[in-house]
């Protein structure tokens, strides 16, 4: 990783949000606002079977009975849900011959983002599902993977081709009644990825989804479902960017993971939605529900997230540890700079015996950023001999930012052990002087110190992502100490 650190430091000097461009492409929109008609419109557009429409409508009706949660340590301007466009799809050009042919404009867009959708030029060993606004543009390597019995396709395609699997698992980990944004997503979700690893199969390459918001005034509501059958293994990565705009845009996603007996799923996120400008104008509202269930014994689910974007982040990736001896992990680095706010953490629900979980959370606040860790560790009566270790560290840069920790711990038996450690530190003037005296300028020094601070989390990421994440950390903190 040392080799890359230097490259990264060189790039730090370039700064600013690099993904803020807009692709000029003809887009088809749903009428603005949300009613049952909107829900039906989306379902019809996607040519969905009846059970999907029914699910969406139930979710929508439930959503109408709910109110937006206010418990998070976030200051959010009121969201006018009738002012949002819930479906936007890049129009398919008619002269394209094959169905799977991709508009060159879209290929160019993803190339510009560093994502190649042509398999021969692929990132080594990574299969990509590229989602722009409400639809999946292309999934690479689907055919190669199918030889192993692995299904990796867009959610929409899965609804058409594997309705039984969708019916069985969709909403089984995050029901539409779970929370306000989960209900909204369940009503209007557009696309996302579906991934199924059959019994005993170790997925030979990394799977990834790249989410891109392009259209203005549009919300993105994606939904991802990963099912790992007995003894299966998969490592999955997710990346996201959006154009630079003055108004806020809503992103409310759901990710569900099901891990059967002896299965292991690693889920990594590098979240880099547009964070808003230096004065807090614009930026993505990122409300995400991510949850996995270790259904069988000895299953393992591991979440790793590097959160540098969005003006508001609200997410608590969690694990339900149902199987005995199952393991849940959460590793997080969350950066808030300028006016960004994050309320993020994890939920570990211990139900099975001898279940173990670990939470490592590293918050970094700069500018006027507000960074909160919120986490629930719940050990039920029957989850005997279970263990949790939580470590929540906060790093403050400057004097106008804030770091907060809200741990919730419930232990229902006497044989389990739960540990919680928390620290708050600052980059000291002594550390900066020491680096500068060795010839390293302030920006690079901060990049170095912050990457050192986040090392425990970054080392959990797959190689391709770790490099990206290191760069992001340095860039997103640029100009934070002056």
């Amino acid at each position, binding site marked *: 990783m040392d080799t890359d650190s230097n490259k990264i430091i060189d790039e730090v000097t370039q700064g600013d949000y690099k993904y803020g461009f807009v692709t000029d492409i003809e887009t088809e929109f749903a009428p603005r606002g949300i009613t049952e008609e909107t829900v039906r419109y989306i379902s019809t557009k996607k040519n969905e079977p009846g059970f999907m429409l029914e699910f969406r409508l139930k979710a929508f009706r439930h959503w109408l009975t709910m109110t937006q949660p206010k418990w998070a340590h976030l200051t959010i301007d009121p969201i006018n849900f009738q002012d949002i466009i819930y479906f936007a799809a890049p129009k398919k050009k008619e002269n394209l011959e094959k169905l799977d042919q991709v508009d060159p404009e879209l290929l160019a867009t993803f190339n510009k983002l560093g994502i190649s959708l042509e398999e021969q030029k692929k990132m080594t060993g990574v299969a990509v599902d590229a989602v722009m606004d409400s639809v999946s543009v292309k999934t690479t390597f689907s055919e190669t993977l199918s030889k192993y019995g692995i299904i990796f396709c867009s959610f929409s395609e899965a609804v058409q081709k594997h309705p039984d699997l969708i019916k069985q698992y969709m909403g089984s980990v995050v029901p539409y009644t779970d929370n306000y944004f989960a209900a909204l997503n369940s009503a209007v979700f557009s696309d996302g990825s579906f991934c199924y690893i059959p019994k005993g199969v170790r997925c030979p390459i990394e799977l990834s989804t790249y989410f891109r918001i392009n259209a203005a005034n549009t919300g993105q509501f994606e939904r991802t479902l990963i099912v790992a059958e007995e003894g299966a293994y998969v490592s999955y990565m997710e990346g996201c960017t959006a154009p630079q705009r003055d108004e806020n845009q809503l992103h409310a996603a759901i990710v569900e993971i099901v891990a059967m007996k002896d299965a292991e799923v690693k889920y990594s996120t590098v979240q880099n939605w547009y964070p808003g400008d230096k004065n807090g104008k614009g930026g993505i509202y990122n409300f995400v529900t991510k949850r996995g269930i270790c259904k069988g014994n000895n299953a393992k689910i591991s979440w790793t997230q590097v959160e540098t974007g969005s003006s508001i982040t609200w997410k608590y990736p969690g694990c339900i540890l149902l199987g005995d001896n199952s393991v849940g992990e959460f590793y997080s680095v969350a950066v808030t700079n300028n006016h960004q706010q994050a309320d993020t953490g994890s939920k570990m629900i211990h139900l099975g015996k001898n279940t173990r979980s670990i939470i490592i959370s590293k918050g970094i606040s700069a500018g006027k950023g507000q960074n909160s860790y919120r986490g629930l560790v719940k050990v039920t009566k029957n989850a005997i001999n279970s263990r949790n270790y939580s470590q929540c560290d906060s790093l403050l840069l400057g004097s106008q930012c804030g770091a907060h920790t809200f741990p919730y711990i419930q232990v229902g038996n006497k044989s389990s052990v739960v540990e919680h450690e928390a620290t708050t530190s600052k980059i000291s003037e002594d550390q900066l002087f020491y680096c*500068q*005296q060795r010839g390293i*300028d302030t920006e690079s020094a901060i990049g170095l*110190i912050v990457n050192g*601070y*986040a*090392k425990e989390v970054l080392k959990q990421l797959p190689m391709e992502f770790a490099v990206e994440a290191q760069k992001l950390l340095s860039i997103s903190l640029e100009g934070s100490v002056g």
Partner: protein
Amino acid sequence: MLLSIKNLHASINGKEILKGVNLEVNNGEIHAIMGPNGTGKSTLASVIAGRDVFETTSGEILYKGKNLQKLSIEERACEGIFLGFQYPVEIPGVSMTNFMRTAVNEIRKYKGLDALSGSEFIKLMEEKKKLVEITSNLTNRSVNEGFSGGEKKKNEIFQMAMLEPMLAILDETDSGLDIDALRIVANGVNKLRRPDNAFVVITHYQRLLDYIVPDFVHVLYEGKIVKSGGKELALELEDRGYDWIKKELGE
């Protein structure tokens, strides 16, 4: 002349610490600065390095003929000024290897040289470790984290060897060292000595000067250099303390 300090006054939070320091250092020389606690020795080192908590109120520092005040801390470092810290700071999670590689390449960039490749860098590091007699795997550990007092000081000398400065200021590098560590530190300095570079060694104790033989010894007292002499001055100070100097000054 490498370094020329003229009538330097510097203060922190409005309190004047340096009250007219004059000092000249030529290439190839070793200078020792001694003096009682709290007389401004470390402040002088920090001001030369450019630490901005100190305000230079008057006087000037010329380095290689250039006015240093116009250069940032890192520019001074890239120009060849090295400070061996009295209290080296810890940087958790950043390996010494990564830290040094960043420093070496930043300095190379400043000089218009290409960055060292991974293998070139490792080779250089092994060479320098040998030179300063570091046998442990210190370079795999985080910068100064969990280092003993002696390891931290040896690490400063290792960094000096890596960065090959023109002017190295060692701020009480000998304090808290046992005799073996002291010897390693002193040997490091002696091996790195060249006709074109210079050392300013700040110390309380004459014993370091048994190993690093200075060309000049200065006494810094109440923000001024009040007495300068050859290496025998250090012996005299060891023998007689500082009271006689205070008397000479008419206090």
